[in-house]
């Protein structure tokens, strides 16, 4: 069942409003889920569950939010991503815009990659699988 990007956006917006107790107006395409909408770790799990339900899809753990990066010394050193780390992250988060993050790949700034747009892109790829 193909959904337009607009339809996906509306549903994702609804999920974020319900899970995070934010107003619809706060959920803009460039809003950062953690920094701007106040999401915490449990909220990411909540969002994942609600998206699975709303779009009738399965989101295996680690697919939406990459895990175990910081603990790997080849990927992260001194709180920054190594070149290998950056490559790996891009692979795991193909829907994010890395132009800003690339300039200063600090682990603490990773949350900025997680925007509403990224989420919509992610859902689009799972829902509109080309035949």
């Amino acid at each position, binding site marked *: 069942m193909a959904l337009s990007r607009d339809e996906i956006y509306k549903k994702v917006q609804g999920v974020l409003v319900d*899970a*995070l*107790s934010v107003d619809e107006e706060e959920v803009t395409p460039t809003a950062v889920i953690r920094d701007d909408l*106040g999401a*915490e770790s*449990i*909220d990411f799990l909540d969002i994942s569950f609600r998206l699975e339900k709303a779009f009738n899809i399965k989101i295996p753990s680690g697919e939406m939010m990459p895990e175990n990066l910081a603990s790997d010394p080849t990927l992260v050193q001194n709180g920054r991503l190594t070149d290998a780390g950056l490559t790996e992250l891009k692979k795991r988060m193909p829907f994010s815009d890395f132009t800003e993050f690339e300039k200063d790949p600090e682990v603490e700034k990773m949350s900025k990659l997680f925007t509403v747009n990224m989420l919509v892109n992610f859902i689009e790829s799972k829902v509109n699988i080309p035949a």
Partner: protein
Amino acid sequence: MNANRIVSVSSFFIGISSFIRGFGFRRLDFPQALRLANPASHRYKRILEDRREEHHNSVKFNLIDHIELLSDQRIVAVKFVSLAEEYLADHFPTFPVLPGVMMLEAITQAAGWLMHHRTGFAKSMAVLKEAKNVKYGQFVAPGNYLKVDVELAKLTETGATFKASGFAGADPALQARVELSYFNLGDKQPELAELDGRLIEHHRMRWTVLNAGRTPSDAVAI
């Protein structure tokens, strides 16, 4: 009453006071002796009242220890966690931490005090009507304290909504949105109206206890 009866009644009481005097009790007059002997005496009444009031001074489900800030829009209150709290033995054995729902209760009680403050104890009941997106980020362990910051968001027909955040010491511990129902029992069921006065009096007394011992320059800077 005939003379014989008067004599026998009088001698009975003279006998009683001599008896009591004989055992070193202080001298009792007639009305005092009568009061002691009578079960409906004011002293027994006082004991019965004390039993009912006893719980007033042994509040165990009080989740607010200290109020740091109070305005018409906002309350900041603190709950200290001590290993002496009984339920910690079960939550959890070898890993005592304040249960999440007790943090919610602290927010509810703080919001209740804010409503009482705003309205001058207008209503007797301040109960949780709805809690939304209450999320727990950090445990509060014994020796530490939970600070709740509760802000009035909107007044409703039946009470008010609040936005609240909690801190384990200095670290963010929780966020919540709650709606309180603030009402008198008599509003819902007229036959319960007489309880409202007693409940409000109880809240006023608890408020006094909560603020007792505070000096303007409260030394502990939290």
